[in-house]
């Protein structure tokens, strides 16, 4: 395997690690499912890409603006839903993904429509992806041990009990959702400036679903597990290219086996004991 290809795969995996860290906050910690998370990635990618190519913004301010836009949109989407049963957030975000695809296709003169946005300069390299992934994972790790993180886990385990303990459940759900949106949008920026080309089909609900599956594969409440399974499940298909179309089927069967026979995921609740991260065996999961 040539070193260029290896660098390529590694960078893609690191960008995925960032997305999955975002999903981990939402799904692993708070128990919400977003099936439109990839659409927030699309917002990050398109807004930053457009700002740089059409408005001559420098790279980093463009990223910051893109993340801000995504968070604002996330607020509009999340506001009516976080007070409702958890099914609503997945259904609404699913519809949201469709809507984003519609918008991207509609404003063809600006976004390039179905043929995609081209000519984004290449700014992301392995180093930037690595640093970003480390920072994001560390931030999520810190969030998990913070007061908010513990409230998230309480909401996930039992909404009503958490409320009875004085946790403002809708608010904590919103915090988790927006944090996740910000992280995902940032990964979208990195992605756009790595591949230099994006089109609406890259951000369908299948991609969001894949991230949820990865989090569960790694362990219901383990950030370490999520990151590990991103590396394994993200790297594996690259080495199994020869299987072609059968990849997805094998992948799905693997996950079904895990859910049936090891419902906690690969690592369950286990967490790498970095920093002050404490083990909390009695939270979440089953």
């Amino acid at each position: 395997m040539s070193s260029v290809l290896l660098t390529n795969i590694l960078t893609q995996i690191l960008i995925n690690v960032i997305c999955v860290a975002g999903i981990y906050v939402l799904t692993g910690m708070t128990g919400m499912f977003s099936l439109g998370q990839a659409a927030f990635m699309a917002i990050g990618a398109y807004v930053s890409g457009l700002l740089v190519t059409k408005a001559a913004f420098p790279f980093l301010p463009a990223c910051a603006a893109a993340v801000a836009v995504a968070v604002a949109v996330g607020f509009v989407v999340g506001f009516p839903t976080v007070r409702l049963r958890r099914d609503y957030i997945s259904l609404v975000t699913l519809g949201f993904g469709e809507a984003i695809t519609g918008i991207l296709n509609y404003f063809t003169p600006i976004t390039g429509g179905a043929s995609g946005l081209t000519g984004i300069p290449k700014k992301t390299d392995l180093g930037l992806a690595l640093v970003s992934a480390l920072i994001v994972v560390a931030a999520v790790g810190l969030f998990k041990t913070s007061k908010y993180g513990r409230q998230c886990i309480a909401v996930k385990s039992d909404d009503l009990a958490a409320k009875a303990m004085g946790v403002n459940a809708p608010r904590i759900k919103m915090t988790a959702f927006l944090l996740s949106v910000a992280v995902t949008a940032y990964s979208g920026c990195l992605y756009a400036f790595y591949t230099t080309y994006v089109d609406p089909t890259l951000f369908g609900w299948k991609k969001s679903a894949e991230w949820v599956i990865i989090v569960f594969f790694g362990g219901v409440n383990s950030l370490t597990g999520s990151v590990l399974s991103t590396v394994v499940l993200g790297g594996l298909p690259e080495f199994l290219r020869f299987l072609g179309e059968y990849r997805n089927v094998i992948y799905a069967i693997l996950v079904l086996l895990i859910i049936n026979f090891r419902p906690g995921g690969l690592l369950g609740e286990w967490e790498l004991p970095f920093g002050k991260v404490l083990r909390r065996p009695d939270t979440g999961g089953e």
Partner: protein
Amino acid sequence: MQLQIILNGLALGSVYALIATGFSLIFNILKFSNFAHGATMAFCAFAGYFVAAANKMGLVPTIAVAVATGGLVALCGEFVAFRSITVRNASPIYYFVSSITLGTLLEGLVTIKAGANFYNYPLFFKKRIMKFHGLVISTSDVIMFCCSAAALLILVWVIRKTRLGRGLRAVSFDRDTAGLMGINVIRTIQFAFLLSGMLAGLAGVFLGINYTLYPTLGSLVVKGFIASVIGGLGSIAGALIGAVLLGLAETQLVNLVGSTLTPVLTFVIMLVFLLLRPRGIAGSNIQEKA
């Protein structure tokens, strides 16, 4: 002209109704959103195509094949993906992950067989359109509307009047108590999956007739989701109302603002509904625990 749009909307709404009720049935009984439903539809549409339509068989055998496949796939899916979760009484979160994975699996299988190609159902009718007092009605729309209406009426009859239907209602009301009263819970859940799969099969054929066949056809299930959110999650009547309203709204919107902006506006309608009346038109307010 206006009447024309309403007629088209009704035909479209009837297919959405098939999707939404199939989805609602599972939601009712296991209290989760079945994301494998769309892939099941696509799978059945392709099964119908490859077994019957490609061999120049008529509409009836195609529907029969698709409906049978739907029932079978849903039953297998229940066994493979959901049984152990039900038996362990595990957190509903697992149903989500399982259904998403099952959807990926089915879609993967379709992709293996069909590749990334597009397929078209043969034209089943010699006379493609009927003219009636200046209205143009396509034959497939009429058949679609009649078949969906018949299927849904039968479904309502089964749920209201038969012993199995009563069991279904009892289990969706309270699984544990129903079990104590001597209802075979697993059998009832299987029955719900069978019905839902058959509806998915029927919907799959009509989607195949209406659109081109491609492996990700299942993403049209979003319409069913939106319909059931508007109508009320977990209510069959709500799903029907929501689906017809969505069909009418969509044809109207396509006419007014074009097809690319329509999904955006339907999404906005859904958000507004959630803000103003979160339980939908007919749904009761479902809480995780009361």
